[in-house]
């Protein structure tokens, strides 16, 4: 079955043999057993598609019946116009009125909640936090989210942290004694960038009107925060960030 180029006397084979004899720790079984009892199952795609198709059909029939009745009873006269309603996640055409005119992009404003579609977002979905003063990180902001934006974060494995360090000194300093050249972030904080051509509004809006945007080109390496015409690029942290 295997590639004959790997001789069984190959040193690597000894590693595989040792690995094959490794057994999972007992706590792993307990953790999984407990975990699945706290984790709901998602509806399967096939069933979901079937359910949605059925639901859509019912809605369609109801819409035709009700629409026909309303059309028959519609008022006729001047002043009636129609327009396409904007998508719930479409970016606003202009800066929201909630932007403070004299907003200072260098001033940290952590600790408030984000919202989406008019609903407040739990802190474990999206949170803006200030760095601890006692570590000298008071000027740094951390935007924390799950790798699947919109899901509550439950594991450090999935935690994505984006960093606003307006000095870039903290972000470019290594946190790894074994690798002094490794910066803390993937790329630099950019206080003023052009709107990325492929920018997509996530729908998330901070308490003061700041918007969270992403771009296909930047991927998970950076996010974009927009206030009016000001676009900032926040790089992702390259390592888990902790302050003793």
């Amino acid at each position: 079955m295997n590639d004959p180029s790997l001789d069984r006397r190959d040193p690597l084979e000894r590693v595989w043999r040792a690995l094959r004899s490794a057994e999972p720790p007992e706590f792993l079984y307990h953790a999984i057993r407990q975990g699945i009892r706290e984790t709901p199952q998602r509806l399967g795609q096939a069933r979901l598609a079937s359910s949605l198709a059925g639901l859509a059909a019912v809605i369609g029939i109801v819409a035709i019946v009700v629409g026909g009745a309303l059309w028959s009873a519609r008022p006729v006269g001047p002043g009636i116009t129609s327009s396409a309603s904007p998508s719930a996640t479409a970016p606003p055409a202009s800066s929201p009125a909630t932007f403070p005119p004299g907003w200072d992009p260098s001033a940290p404003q952590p600790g408030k909640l984000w919202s989406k579609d008019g609903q407040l977002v739990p802190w474990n979905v999206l949170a803006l936090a200030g760095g601890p003063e006692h570590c000298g990180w008071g000027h740094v902001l951390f935007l924390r989210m799950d790798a699947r934006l919109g899901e509550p974060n439950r594991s450090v494995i999935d935690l994505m942290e984006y960093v606003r360090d307006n000095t870039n000194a903290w972000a470019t300093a290594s946190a790894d004694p074994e690798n002094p050249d490794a910066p803390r972030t993937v790329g630099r904080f950019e206080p003023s960038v052009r709107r990325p051509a492929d920018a997509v509004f996530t729908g998330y809006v901070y308490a003061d009107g700041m918007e969270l945007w992403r771009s296909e080109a930047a991927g998970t390496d950076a996010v974009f925060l927009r206030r009016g015409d000001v676009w900032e690029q926040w790089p992702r942290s390259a390592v888990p960030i902790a302050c003793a």
Partner: protein
Amino acid sequence: MKEGTLDLIRRAQQGDHAAFDELVEKYAPDLYRLALAVVGPDAAADVTQDAFLRAWADVRSLRDPDRFGQWLRRILVNRCRDLVRARQRVRILSLDTGAVIGAPTSPDPAAAADQSVDLHRALKAMTLDQRLILALHYLADLPIRDVAQVLAVPEGTAKSRLHSAMQELRRTMGEES
């Protein structure tokens, strides 16, 4: 796949916790060993647990229960990649952790130690993809066709990656001359 296992999978798809518990007992050792080879002893249990919880959450979307094992491995591989992406550095298998992965099998401990150092250096020089493909092929004993499916790459790509991984391994270990 045996009918008993298929029955467990179908019951798990109906939300049967006990059936999934049995699947965990059956598949956890292989998955854990794969994680051990790819992300090392510190993260192997976390990645394995996470893969199973994700599998439980999504098992209803599995259309072909016969592919359960492959599907689980693919979830695990993705979790390993997520881990690397999150931490931007992989903790590779430490050959000094004999207590975790078992005692050395060489009759000559001194020679084994020397080779361990070489192998440690070699694995450290490899990319995540190279380590994954070696582990899937040589540890999980999957044929190239299945390795390609787990990694979601064409079979030809899997073959060339395996070839380059072996070349890299031998080059680093000084076996090419």
